């Protein structure tokens, strides 16, 4: 569960949490683009370090580090595969540049994962749903999203209750070989699914009774307004993008191996 911990929202109030999710998303996409732009380790390192002030400001260090740990396995895999491939294709030479470029590619992956992690850690589902509602996405999708998020804890509790109810009838979930263990979950899955269907029916009734479908132009109680902080982040994002593009096209970036020599 620890990888998902890195993505779960915590109700903390920090300046980052209050930023408009759309702007935050633009920022994350920009980091994404910058990361793809470079394959040298120094700029990628800089991009990675750039996340840290945001993480600290948002006070989500612990969860962020946990998601880093979760990504560590894949990152190591990427590193090893890259080194191995370069090793074999360059005629069995294991050189500094090979290690460095493999490290760079690994770091690129990490930067991508981590920027999204910061986004999800600092954006409440409400905010996200609101952003979806206010964008051009059809309301049905935004509604499906927020309703799903709303019922996740309810379904989780229900799953636990169902497991308890069946355990109290002698069901031993952990017993038996792999096939038997999968079959053990049938008495848990079926009530869960049936309950979800019943729940959807009740929800649909309630929606219909509250004028669902009355007009094509739905309005919204909330309005996402852009504040100073949002404009600041937007400016920072543009700055980063511009600098990155400039560096990429007009400057040559030294590698660490070159600097050492």
């Amino acid at each position: 569960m620890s990888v998902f911990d890195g993505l779960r929202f915590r109700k903390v109030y920090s300046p980052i949490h209050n930023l408009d999710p759309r702007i935050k998303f633009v920022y994350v996409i920009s980091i994404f683009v910058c990361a793809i732009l470079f394959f040298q380790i120094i700029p990628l390192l800089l991009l990675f370090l750039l996340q840290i002030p945001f993480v600290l400001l948002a006070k989500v260090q612990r969860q962020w580090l946990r998601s880093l740990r979760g990504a560590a396995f894949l990152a190591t895999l990427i590193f090893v595969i890259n080194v191995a491939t370069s090793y074999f294709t360059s005629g069995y030479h294991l050189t500094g540049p090979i290690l460095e470029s493999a490290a760079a590619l690994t770091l690129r992956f990490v930067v991508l994962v981590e920027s999204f992690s910061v986004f999800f850690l600092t954006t409440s589902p409400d905010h996200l749903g609101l952003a979806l509602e206010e964008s051009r996405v059809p309301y049905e999708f935004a509604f499906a999203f927020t309703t799903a998020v709303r019922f996740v804890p309810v379904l989780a509790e229900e799953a636990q209750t169902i497991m308890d109810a069946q355990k109290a009838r002698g069901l031993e979930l952990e017993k038996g070989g792999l096939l038997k263990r999968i079959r053990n979950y049938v008495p848990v899955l079926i009530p869960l699914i049936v309950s979800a269907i019943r729940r959807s029916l009740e929800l649909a009734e309630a929606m219909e009774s509250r004028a669902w479908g009355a007009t094509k132009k739905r309005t919204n109680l909330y309005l996402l307004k852009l504040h100073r902080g949002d404009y600041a982040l937007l400016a920072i994002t543009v700055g980063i993008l511009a600098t990155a593009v400039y560096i990429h096209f007009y400057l040559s970036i030294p590698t660490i191996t070159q600097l050492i020599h």
Partner: protein
Amino acid sequence: MVVIETKNLTYTYPGATKPSILNVSIKVEKGEFVLITGPSGCGKTTLCRTFNGLVPHFYQGELKGEISVAGIDTLKHHTYEMAKHVGLVFQNPENQLFALSVEKDVAFGLENMGFPREEMRKKVDWALNQTGIYDLRERSPHEISGGQQQRVAIASVLAMEPEIIVLDEPTSFLDPLSAAKIFEVIYDLNKKQGITVILVEHRLDLTAKYTNHLIVMDRGQIRFEGNPREILSSEKTRLIGVGIPKATLLYQMLKKDGLNLGTNVPLSSEELADQLLEALKPSD
């Protein structure tokens, strides 16, 4: 003024072998507090759903007979058109709330109807205040108690300012104290706002005192309709399996054994206690 009128309403769910409601004819006047009761399966839930068109539009099947709610023939209008006249509150508190905050849920109906933001804000705040949950407005529906959730459901229906509010066993999942609070909220809305209320309930000991229009159903049909004091003191009602309030039963039992406490049949412990004090207080 009649706000709901049905004539020989009959409905069978698709795939069912017999009708859930049969020849139901009722008349509800504006401002009334109507109580519908009856054993499980008597058709009260189905009847509720005819009031805003869920039957037959949502459930399909054929609804025979005539029905007019707030002057509108529900057969010829969409459920969303009925929403501004009739609000429906359901049994399960959890499955009526979809938004991530209480006030967004209360605004749901208004958003669907396309109200401008400032107007919505006013109506939402008003509804929250009427149901006493204004300070819960930013909470998530999952965090609050069942009783609070039902009040949110009532508020979200109230925000659309309907003339009629129908509540189908709204306190089934609640403990008696929370249930009593809900009934108080509903009674308040009826008395102060003049909203016509239709309440479906089993717990007559908690609710009989609010109404003077009681409808008892059994197996899809209306068996008794009228003054609760007459209906609940009748032997025939007890035979249907309706839960007569103990105060009323005791009054009956005493009457049979020779102690007549008066012509007014008590529906609550207060009424019976007053009668007993009157009859038994030591004479000076």
